[in-house]
């Protein structure tokens, strides 16, 4: 187990480095600098600005400077919000995004596992087909279609829930964003749980349990659930990435001042340090969570510990 864990941790580091290098190169290869669209500056002022942000140095030196800053948790100054560092901006936006993401993943797991088990137990009946069909719809319809439709129905037409962040009760305004973000993940978790549960229910140990006279409910709970949920555990990694990406859309539509909105605004302002900082930060979070999921999986399923 220790060997497996060490190998996984070691292989996460080059992945993170790869993201940093790719993102850094992309930003620096971009035509047009962050200060181009302001009024034309006298050459010596332009040189001073470039020197202040170290833009006059060679690319490897800038990268070295960026990397050594990263290690100290310093993501550099924002080009657009002059008085703030990128780390401050991310820190201010993070709690809200974190809450949104955690609630969505929790909702997806609760509803998805319940629906998947329900469909598997009723395999090949009309209810099973209904759940599978709904799951297919959930997978197919993108977040940026679901979110505005939810707003249109529940906020604009029915008026039950606030349409944007500025209006309405604080507790309720997270409901629509969380649901919009969770829906596709609910669908994926449902499908994975259903397949896993059907496989588990048709395996030998379940037949033995059944022969001993155990009821269906206790078979599901005590015997079939753990092996059935292994695919769901391994899907958690991609799910986290999907939720982080989906948050960009959901936060934009609902006007939530979180990381996603900060990212889109940074992109439109050509605030390169901010955009780069968010990409590196999110990549680090996704890679770290993937690592945790892998370790959890290795803990649950001894078969994959052999490298």
């Amino acid at each position, binding site marked *: 187990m220790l060997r497996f864990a060490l190998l996984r941790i070691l*292989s*996460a580091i*080059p*992945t993170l480095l*790869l*993201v940093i290098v*790719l*993102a850094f190169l*992309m*930003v620096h*290869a*971009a*035509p*047009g600098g962050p200060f181009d669209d302001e009024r034309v500056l006298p050459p010596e002022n332009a040189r001073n600005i470039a020197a202040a942000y170290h833009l006059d140095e060679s690319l490897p030196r800038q990268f070295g400077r960026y990397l050594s800053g990263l290690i100290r948790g310093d993501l550099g100054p924002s080009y657009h919000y002059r008085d703030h560092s990128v780390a401050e901006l991310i820190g201010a936006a993070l709690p809200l995004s974190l809450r949104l993401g955690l609630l969505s993943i929790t909702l997806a797991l609760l509803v998805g596992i319940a629906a998947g088990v329900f469909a598997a137990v009723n395999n090949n009946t009309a209810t099973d087909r209904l759940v599978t*069909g709904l799951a*297919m*719809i959930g*997978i*197919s*319809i*993108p977040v*940026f*279609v679901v979110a*505005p*439709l939810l*707003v*249109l129905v529940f906020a*604009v037409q029915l008026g039950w829930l606030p349409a944007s962040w500025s209006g309405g009760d604080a507790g309720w305004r997270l409901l629509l964003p969380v649901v919009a973000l969770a829906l596709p993940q609910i669908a994926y978790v449902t499908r994975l749980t259903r*397949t896993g549960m*059907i*496989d588990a229910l048709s395996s030998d140990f379940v037949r033995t349990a059944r022969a001993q006279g155990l009821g269906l409910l206790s078979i599901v709970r005590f015997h079939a659930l753990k092996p059935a949920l292994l695919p769901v555990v391994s899907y958690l*990694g*991609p799910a986290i*990435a999907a939720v*982080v*990406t989906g948050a*960009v*859309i959901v936060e*934009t*539509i609902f006007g939530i001042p979180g990381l996603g909105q900060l*990212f*889109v605004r940074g*992109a*439109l302002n*050509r605030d390169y340090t901010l*955009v*780069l900082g*968010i*990409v590196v930060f*999110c*990549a680090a979070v*996704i*890679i770290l969570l*993937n690592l945790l999921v892998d370790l959890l999986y290795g803990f649950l399923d001894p078969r994959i510990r052999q490298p």
Partner: protein
Amino acid sequence: MNTAVVAGRFHNGGTAVKVSAGIVLFVAAMALAVPLLSPHDYFSVNLDQRFQPPTLQGARLFGTDDLGRDLFVRTFSGTRVTLLVAIVASFVSLVFGVAYGAIAGYAGGKIDAVMMRMVDALYALPFMFLVILLMVAFERNFLLIFVAIGAINWLDMARIVRGQTLSLKQREFVDAARLIGVPPLVVVFRHVVPNLLGVVAVYVTLTIPQAILVESFLSFLGLGVQEPRTSLGALVNDGVVQMERAPWLLLIPATLLASILLSFNFLGDGLRDALDPRRRQR
């Protein structure tokens, strides 16, 4: 597996698969025909005909948008762009994924291990963020959309093709080719890859909806196609802005986009089940 067997199983597949195939063909035909045949075009601004609701009389079947442009034509010319981007991007990912997977699988051993470990590492990358970064940095270059989407989608293809290659390379005809001295790369591309195409074709059907998603996502953020050109994602984005005043501007493109994605997913699942009957019994 024999193509006729697969086709037969597909033919016997569920109604959902057949309906999906019908929808895909119908939408593709409309996307080709409507912009050619309609009296309106997708870019002409008509400020005296803004926000006309959809009507069955007259030529404004889907109504008009905030600039008085005909939504019927805009929707289907947007569909045309969306489908075109998706197909070309899937082709990019196909070429790259097949080449990578086939070489890794055929080479085997250390080369295979290193190549597939790289794929594993790339899976953990938050590609969508890098794509957004790419689109921001390079001024929404249309060609880059293809590259970006292809870069995301080739990983799955590489894995599947590698798995197939591993079993194909045990077959006699591959041994025969190797024995008479055909160089390895030629064996891969002349003898192995042609035998993979059935499986690959099925997985392309599942890659296309993913490519559509990425393109619409980018266009939704305003980083995809540029005005007055449009795509389904861009139309949904316009619709969101106007949804309180003119809900049809959101509902029509959103419904069309959702049904295209749903059809491709049903079709791909159905084809995959036809290839692998064990899955269907689940």
